[in-house]
């Protein structure tokens, strides 16, 4: 069915450490994935995306890994900062089918001082 889910609802990370947020998806036909960051009282903010023909993509301090064999993707944040505190959503955009973004429930990232 249509679902993009996250393994853990809350993640606490020491400031300066790396954060890894995981996500599982159920539809093997999915072809585009996005990570969004949502701070309190704000709309989701695009972080990074990856197409299904790739297994890794890097941005500034962030890396997304896609494992199509086990239908899993992860977001790695290097040197986590207090400003990284937010809820992170993985989402699936089914391009060339109906273009709607399907969101998972989200993982709240807490940064410990």
């Amino acid at each position, binding site marked *: 069915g249509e679902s993009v889910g996250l393994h853990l609802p809350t993640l606490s990370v020491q400031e300066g450490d790396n954060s890894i947020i995981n996500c599982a998806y159920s539809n093997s036909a999915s072809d585009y994935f996005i990570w*969004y960051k949502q701070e309190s009282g704000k709309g989701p903010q695009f972080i990074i995306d990856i197409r299904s023909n790739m297994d890794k993509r890097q941005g500034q301090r962030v890396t997304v890994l896609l494992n199509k064999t086990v239908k899993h993707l992860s977001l790695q944040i290097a040197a986590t900062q207090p400003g990284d505190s937010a809820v992170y959503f993985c989402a699936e955009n089914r391009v060339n089918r109906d273009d709607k973004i399907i969101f998972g429930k989200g993982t709240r990232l807490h940064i410990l001082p």
Partner: protein
Amino acid sequence: DAGVTQSPTHLIKTRGQQVTLRCSPKSGHDTVSWYQQALGQGPQFIFQYYEEEERQRGNFPDRFSGHQFPNYSSELNVNALLLGDSALYLCASSPGSLEAFFGQGTRLTVV
């Protein structure tokens, strides 16, 4: 570029009333999508507008309707409000490509 703007930011309505939420897309974007985000949940797709037509619709009742204007701005209308309609309503725009930009949302409270 102001990005995606939504109005109002907050709204309180009574059960049974009707509400209209507005969205101005990012400059150059012709596709507008609406999402409902309940507290502690991920956004749920309501519908998408392109060329003034509803192109896709999620699992929402007919009480939820929308419109897109020639300047690509959009409205979301909800009739016969229920307590369960209380949520953050998000508008997202895109230029027809994959990346969607979200507005800050309208927080609707139904009492």
